[in-house]
């Protein structure tokens, strides 16, 4: 059963997608008004907007439908919906950590950032054993850094210099 919050999120996402479509059509139009430039973008954009309108027509009545009546929601529920409410308490911190990790890469290096990220992710997921929180991230980040330094032809930001391994190339 969809809650008010889920419906609102569903509606917001559809509106955001519509906004992106409109923005892209305007941006392409501003770049050049030639038919050849707009040939794909405008028709596909307009069809997308029409379909998005259809999606909105499906979502909006759900706000007015009695919550207990599942059939009045207009569409059958999928298993993704069933999981909607649970578990975001772990997912949002994980997303935040992933973003922080990527932002930190150029400042503290891939090796240290990876070690901290893996440790923090394990912590968020409820791991409390010292080896898995400290030992595993150190071993994992060392091995992966070593592998990529040896594999990749351009320099990677690293805190600990592993450059001599790149001679393996």
């Amino acid at each position: 059963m969809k809650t008010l919050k889920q419906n609102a999120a569903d509606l917001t996402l559809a509106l955001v997608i519509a906004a992106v479509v409109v923005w892209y059509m305007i941006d392409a139009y501003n770049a050049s008004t030639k038919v050849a430039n707009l040939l794909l973008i405008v028709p596909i954009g307009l069809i997308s907007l029409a379909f998005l309108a259809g999606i909105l027509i499906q979502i909006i009545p759900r706000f007015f439908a009695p919550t207990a009546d599942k059939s009045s929601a207009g569409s059958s529920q999928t298993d993704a919906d069933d999981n909607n409410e649970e578990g975001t308490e772990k997912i949002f911190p994980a997303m935040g950590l992933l973003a922080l990790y990527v932002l930190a890469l150029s400042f503290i290096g891939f090796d240290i950032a990876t070690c901290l990220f893996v440790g923090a992710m394990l912590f968020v997921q409820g791991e409390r054993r010292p080896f898995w929180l400290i030992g595993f991230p150190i071993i994992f980040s060392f091995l992966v850094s070593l592998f990529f330094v040896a594999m990749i032809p351009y320099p990677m930001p690293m805190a600990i210099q592993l450059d001599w391994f790149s001679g393996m190339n």
Partner: protein
Amino acid sequence: MLEIPSILSALNLLFGSVDPWLVVIPGIIIGLFFGATPGLQISMAMAIFLPITLYMDFVKAMLFLTGIFTGGSFGGGVTAILMNIPGTSSCIATTFDGYPMSCNGKHNEALGYALGGSTIGCAIGYIILFFLIQPISIMVLKLGPTEMFTIALWGITLIAGLRGSQILKGVVSGLIGLMLGTIGFSELGIARGTLGIDILLDGIPVVPAMMGMFAASELFNLMNKKFLVDSTEHRRVSIKKIASGMRNVFRYPMIIFRGSLIGLFIGAVPGVGSSVSNLVSYMETKRRAEDADTFGKGNPKGVIAAESANSSSEAGSMATLLALGIPGGGATAVMLAVFMMHNITGGPTFIRDQTDIVYAIIFANFGQVLLLLLLGILLLPILASVVKVPIKILVPSVMSLAVFGAYGLTGNMSGPVTVVVSAVVGWLLKKYNYSVPGMVIGLLLGRMAESELLHSYQISGGRIGYLLERPITVFIATLLVLSLAYTPVKEYLQRKRGQKKQVITKGYGN
């Protein structure tokens, strides 16, 4: 129809040195492990390991990825049989009889049937592809830009159609992907949608986007999944019994052959692929079986039907990829990325000009079948325990690999940043029932679709009537409309029938 010089050249490419085979073995092993780990999909494995293929030539890169594909389709069956968890969506029907066989203490035989069905199915699929690829390419050569554009649109619509009741969201995902795929410089040299970011002038980095959407976003969802493995922990693996199961596969040649054909043809349809073919093959085998009532209770025929179909659909999806340059699903989408990374355009001209490479890919798959047989048997004891690797360790490890890999692909931070952004976008889309594969394939095809449309426009001089002079275009466009209308019409009819039934039962109730 077979070109003997190309065949010889292909054999030389493959057997001239051991090099190509050195990438196949790790490919199959990676596939087996990713396939056997519930939650990790084959396309995810291929996306994560894609950066490594930068250092391989095109043939090796394709062999490595098809190795992952081949290994993955069997690996998924292992968990399906042992713990009733389909490791990948292509093994759903394997659980129907595989798990009951396990419960009856026949898990080794079931694994043998699965391995036998998988390897023979895969081989049959590729043998047929070998004979058909030339005729297909001759047919495909007749297609012009209008046809290619409509085929691309049709492919996206079919993938979208899989969303069932959420068909609108599916189509929107594909169309938005198509639009986002055109970001950056157009063929005319006009930059659009770049937000002033230099990196976007070349377009959204497709492979990191794919890694984010297929791999990282799935990993977020995996964090909440718990798999019950305790009850099945003590199942011992016996190679002898597995081998006897494999031998018994040959008692059901018709089931394998039918499964392989179903897999091949369904696999060739974009968006449908192995996740549907195994179900269709299972249902068809059950429908024809004399002992249909024992299906679902541990009938080995069910396992063979499902596994032969999901393995042969690999060959089907390769046909679409090679002949049209259009990916049918996640796995072939990653392969298309390899085409792009090596500046190769799939399609009829590719088959005509590089026949030896096409044959080499097909032949290599025969070799892969034998290697799968060997590695499958050797690794089964480890694969069976793969599910015990805690998800909480897998999630951050695979995410880090994606970030490293993305940097390796782009050589700057744009790769990792794209992974994060697309991971969040992919997670949101999936949560609200939009189609992630639809968007990724749209993103991949955006440029191609725009350029085909532009060429059609130039050829026709902007005359809409030109489309009506192209019968194949009209035919594909009709198919497109029909496939879009099919689900809503079917649902409407079902709802109507349901309402009628309700009225009748209510009538009885009163």
